[in-house]
């Protein structure tokens, strides 16, 4: 699924990385607990989270993720966006809550694991 499609499905706003929207992702994960993202996530290249702090960007960077979607309308500050952008990541936010966000993506074919 392209990140443009993710944006459309979630009614999301792009906060940085606009030029990287056509890249394809194969799976995603949703969590507010970065400890668990670091411990349980394997090949997922997109993180959905409602937690907003610089360590969300760092965690995604360590896991080689391509995109972070902040749910529940959460908005990171500019230094956090700069950090994400410096690693070529796309950051979006959606007014949707976590469950419907994941549900819409899953229903449209984006699974939790690589097929």
């Amino acid at each position, binding site marked *: 699924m392209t990140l443009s499609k993710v944006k459309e499905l979630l009614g999301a706003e792009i906060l940085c990385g606009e030029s990287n929207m056509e890249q394809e992702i194969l799976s995603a994960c949703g969590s*507010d607990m970065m*400890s668990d993202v*670091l*411990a349980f996530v394997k090949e997922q290249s997109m993180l959905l989270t409602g937690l907003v702090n*610089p360590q969300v960007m760092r*965690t995604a960077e*360590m896991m*080689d993720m391509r995109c972070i979607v902040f749910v529940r309308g959460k908005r990171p500050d500019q230094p956090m966006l700069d950090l994400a952008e410096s690693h070529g990541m796309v950051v979006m936010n959606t007014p949707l809550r976590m469950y419907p966000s994941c549900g819409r993506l899953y229903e449209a074919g984006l699974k939790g694991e690589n097929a």
Partner: protein
Amino acid sequence: MVTERYIVKGDDFQAAGSASSAMKQMLRGAGVPMEVIRRAAICMYEGEINMVIHARGGEAEVSFDGQEITMKLSDNGSGIENPQLALKEGWSTATDEIRGLGFGAGMGLPNMKRNSDDLTIESVPGKGTTIVMKIKV
């Protein structure tokens, strides 16, 4: 053989992860494969977060000799009373504040052990902890 030293500042949650980020870049420059770098990055980042939130910071020394990555983390903390217990999944001494930041699930040390080929902990109560992790490339 490449060796880099990184200073980790204690209680600076904003800057936490910068040493791990620099290490990732160093390993990329040394031609280490992506999936190995990711394992090293997870180990280093978990260790760095621990140093920031529990141990008043410290120093990390990372070297790569062409075959093996060695990460040595030495902190300024008060030591781990029972390292075997700390290696158990779910064991955590983190405060609610730390949990609010997305950490402290008791997965740090177990995750470092899982992602490294060898992990040793030397901890002296009152004097700090040194963790050495090795990953074969």
